């Protein structure tokens, strides 16, 4: 596992795309691990009562999953020095084995001083953006 060198990237450089799937079991597991037991993530009746089609993915589960496009590429999660996202659309998770999937792409949008790069990330579910302004700043090797 080696961190990529700044010399290997340029503005517009695309990271290998990834696809992630969320099932009901993933939501339960994340609720337990994160301590976020908000009922709209596991109780379909209540989710419907507040206007959702069904239970929805925790925004922070989406955010935590999406950054894997960067950390898998880097090989070292400690080199992510900043990570931000705006939660724009919920991801409903049907009670099926297939669950709900997102397509994640990322590209370098800016090179900074000290071998740092800005990476802009896109997360799409059903052709709609679920996280906006999703940006990571990473520390690359010289």
């Amino acid at each position, binding site marked *: 596992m080696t961190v990529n060198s700044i010399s290997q990237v340029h503005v517009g450089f695309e990271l290998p795309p990834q696809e992630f799937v969320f099932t009901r079991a993933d939501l339960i597991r994340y609720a337990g691990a994160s*301590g976020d037991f908000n009922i709209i993530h596991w109780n379909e009746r209540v989710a419907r009562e507040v206007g959702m089609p069904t239970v929805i993915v925790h*925004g922070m589960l989406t955010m935590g999953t999406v950054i894997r496009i960067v*950390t898998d590429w880097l090989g070292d999660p400690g080199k992510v*020095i900043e*990570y*931000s996202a*705006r*939660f724009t659309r919920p991801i409903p998770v049907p009670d099926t084995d297939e669950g709900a999937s997102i397509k994640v792409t990322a590209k370098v949008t800016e090179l900074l001083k000290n071998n740092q790069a800005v990476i802009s990330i896109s997360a799409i579910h059903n052709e709609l953006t679920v996280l906006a302004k999703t940006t990571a700043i990473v520390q690359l090797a010289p």
Partner: protein
Amino acid sequence: MGREKIREFARALGESAPCYFDVESARALGYPDLVAPPTFATVFTLQAGGQVIHDPELGLDYTRVVHGEQRFVQHRPIFAGDEITSTVSVESIRSAAGNDMITVKTQVHAIDGELVSTVYTLLVSRGVGDAS
């Protein structure tokens, strides 16, 4: 910060990267122990944000509060074995389109005083009459 909590959180994100699970792999990257995923601080800053949402003086109706944005500034990763404190403050409050936008800042320090990370959470308190 316990090894098992880091492993549990990483597993919940569907992670398989060895540095989250195997101490030797984390050490091979130059770290003292297991390294936490970039969003791990949510485990304890979530509760810290709750302090703001439920503050009687601020008087938010938490049923109208949604999580708008999240930002992690990582001065160094969190490692298993870290003993940390979080200090919560309200960074800004502004109103836009009938909604109140509250930015909560949580500074995460190691026990020796080193600043480990700064976490910003934007809470949006939807105004009455906004059906969205």
